[in-house]
């Protein structure tokens, strides 16, 4: 069964450093998403991406965050200057359709900012 692959599975970074989280969505999916989950809290939407541009973003997705699809397979989330409160699980998801279709999530990257 097709999977969404995320790397790395764990990342520890110093406060103020830049991190890039990587994702390989399912190959025939067109819509891509980043969500995050702070420990013990709910899964929160960050950004959606379609046709090489951001289609929607939440209030969490401020200027510190950016997304990119550098080639035909990878989808990345960059955090420019990490803060302690950025520590969370970050999930990438992809979908074949924009609506009426369940998203497929990756296993996540656990980001710890120290």
């Amino acid at each position, binding site marked *: 069964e097709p999977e*969404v692959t*995320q790397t790395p599975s764990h990342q520890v970074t110093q406060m103020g450093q830049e991190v890039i989280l990587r994702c390989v969505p399912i190959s025939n999916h067109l819509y891509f*998403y980043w*969500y995050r989950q702070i420990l013990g*809290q*709910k*899964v*929160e*939407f960050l950004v*959606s991406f379609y046709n090489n541009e951001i289609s*929607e973003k939440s209030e969490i997705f401020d200027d510190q965050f950016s997304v990119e699809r550098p080639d035909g397979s990878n989808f990345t989330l960059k955090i420019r200057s990490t803060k302690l409160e950025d520590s969370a*699980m970050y*999930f990438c*998801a992809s979908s074949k359709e*924009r*609506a*009426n*279709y*369940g*998203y*497929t*999530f*990756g*296993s*996540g990257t*656990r980001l710890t900012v120290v």
Partner: protein
Amino acid sequence: EDQVTQSPEALRLQEGESSSLNCSYTVSGLRGLFWYRQDPGKGPEFLFTLYSAGEEKEKERLKATLTKKESFLHITAPKPEDSATYLCAVQRGNTPLVFGKGTRLSVIA
């Protein structure tokens, strides 16, 4: 603002003891309601999508139902391997999924 409230927060069942999880939602123009399973340290795993009131979907020991205000996930004769957090999410129009906090289910042998 779309709201999704799941109850209970945690549920402990004996193996074979059937029960239901609740997802109440406030969404204008619901496009779909989604149920996911999440194991510790993993991403959500898709279970069901429900689109209209009265609809039901089944998968093994799980059955999901939908009304105009809430959805239920019924678990019949659960087994320890059903232990997980069950997440409900809603979609309004073409907007991204909005998740509830989940119900943490423990099934004891």
